[in-house]
């Protein structure tokens, strides 16, 4: 078990594409850490650079108290689960799980015993003689996890561990992975493009964009106080309302409505500054009656989210979305008012949180 630290880590691909731009990141021992970002943001490159499959152009990777920047992947004492699991198709489950021990020259009997032990822990005991081709996606994933557990490495790296599972299995695997990581207590870094996955599983997470880390924090910090408009628009299963506005004394003029300055920005936006007002649809109170400091408009679309509805209001020429509990959803064409929660709304200036 060990902490992972990245210092000014830079990766430039031949041809000049800067995949990682001087990243600093510290992941304490035992943490479940998510790297989240849209495709092409460099999150997989970052994971592969930690693993040693890509060589860093600059900066350092420190695992535990060892600088491993110049070391081969095998010498770094990390274990990795690949997106496609990369189970060896010509070996049965036992041999797959025992493969890392075979490389470490553990005797056959000892490594098969270890494989059986780890396999049993992950509920694979009745599958140990099968080949990967005879397993379902979820079983293959557990074999890949078992193989990683057999290494007893200092840190685990998971590349999109859930993306190859179907939707229902993914939710189960999410819970399973989080529980397993907690029990093992091994520092784990995983890459995902699914913000819900990162929020659900991670102890802390980094949101990446174009080779930069845009925010590091716990899932609640990142969800409630996105540090910039990129993170704000990327996180959340219903996109955050991000509306252009201007500060007017102690109110904000947003989409033609007068909105009170959020608690977090009180006294910090001088008169006349151009701002972006951000509030999540979940933090809006919807009402059919006009209210002070609310967005008023016509209901354009009502989307069913299951236990609630997402109501889209046409406010002037912008749209404002609010989540309405079931039973009180309006009809399309009604007049509606959405009142933001002052303690949850945010103000961004030049793209950064005020």
């Amino acid at each position: 078990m060990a902490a992972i630290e990245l210092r000014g880590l830079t990766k430039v691909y031949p041809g000049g594409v800067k995949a990682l731009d001087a990243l600093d990141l510290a992941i304490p021992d035992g943490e479940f850490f998510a790297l989240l970002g849209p495709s092409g943001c460099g999150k997989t490159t970052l994971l592969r650079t930690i693993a040693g499959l890509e060589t860093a152009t600059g900066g350092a990777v420190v695992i535990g108290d060892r600088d491993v920047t110049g070391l081969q992947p095998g010498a770094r004492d990390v274990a990795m689960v690949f997106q496609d699991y990369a189970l060896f198709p010509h070996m049965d489950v036992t041999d797959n799980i025992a493969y890392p021990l075979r490389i470490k020259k553990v005797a056959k009997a000892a490594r098969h015993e270890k494989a059986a032990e780890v396999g049993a822990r992950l509920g694979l005991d009745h599958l140990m003689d099968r080949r990967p081709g005879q397993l379902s996606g979820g079983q293959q994933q557990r074999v890949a996890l078992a193989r990683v557990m057999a290494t007893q490495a200092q840190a685990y790296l998971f590349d999109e561990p859930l993306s190859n599972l179907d939707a229902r299995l993914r939710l189960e695997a999410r819970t399973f992975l989080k529980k397993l990581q907690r029990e093992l207590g091994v520092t784990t870094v995983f890459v995902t493009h699914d913000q819900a996955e990162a929020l659900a599983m991670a102890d802390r997470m980094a949101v990446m964009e174009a080779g930069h880390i845009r925010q590091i924090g716990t899932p609640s910090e990142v969800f409630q106080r996105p540090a910039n408009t990129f993170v704000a628009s990327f996180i959340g299963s219903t996109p955050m309302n991000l509306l252009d506005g201007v500060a007017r004394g102690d109110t904000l003029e947003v989409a033609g409505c007068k909105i009170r300055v959020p608690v977090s920005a009180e006294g910090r936006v001088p008169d006349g500054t151009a701002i972006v007002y951000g509030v999540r649809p979940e933090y809006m109170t919807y009402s059919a009656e006009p209210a002070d400091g609310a967005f008023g408009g016509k209901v354009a679309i009502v989307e069913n989210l299951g236990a609630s509805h997402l109501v889209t209001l046409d406010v002037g020429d912008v749209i404002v979305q609010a989540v309405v509990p079931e039973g009180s959803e309006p009809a399309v064409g009604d007049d509606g008012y959405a009142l933001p929660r002052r303690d949850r709304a945010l103000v961004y200036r030049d793209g950064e949180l005020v």
Partner: protein
Amino acid sequence: MTRFVLGRIGFYTLVAVLLAFFTIPLLWLVTAPFTSDPTYEVKVPDFTLDNFRAVLEHPYALPSLWNSVVLSVGSAVLVVVMAALAAYALSRVRLPGRDALLYALLLLSSIITGTAAMVPLFQLAVELNLIDSQLGLILILTGGLLPAAIFMLKDFMDSTPKSYEESARVFGASPLQIVRHVVVPLVRPGLATIAVWAVANVWGNFLMPYLLLSDVEKQPAAVITYTLYTEGGQANLSMLSTFGLLYSIPVVLMYLFVSKKYGFRFHGGIKR
């Protein structure tokens, strides 16, 4: 309707003629050895084994088949080992001008064992003291087969996902361990294909052994076939057909064996 029927009749007639063209020589090959006095006709054999006795009594016939085995297996082993290593490297390491190199090699290979290179190859073998040596012949045949083998195997290697190897690398496997544990098992059908192809190529090669081996005790079956004449200078059809049958059986058996053993591909382990 009549046009359709006529078209069908024409089509099947054409197929029948084509089939006969290829079948009749094969029929001759399996009937003539069992006929007492074979001609170029296909006739119902009288099931005599005299021809086989004659082949057995021929001083060079059976040893030449063994020579063929030595030459073809020797070359095949060399070709498979060297082509596998080269193809793996070429498939995984990005070199500037790699594809140009491969195509140039492929082009040159048809020259190396081709007629154009006979004189220089002969001279080279003389200089290196490899004339009349089976080892020398194996080396030259291997050289001729390698480029095409590398080219074909590289294709196999390219189509195996890299994450298998990366996974082994992260577990600490050395490059040679990766090749042994992961790459070779994955491309085994490809290796088997190359081996069969190399054996069949050397087995049927007449020109190179004819040029480079003058000692009749070292000559392979392909060259010995050429010497099967009657005293009158006529082709000895009973010997030729019988020897031809014996000569073709091992290749057919090898093909059947390999196709049964390796004629499948592994699936799974990589989620697509």
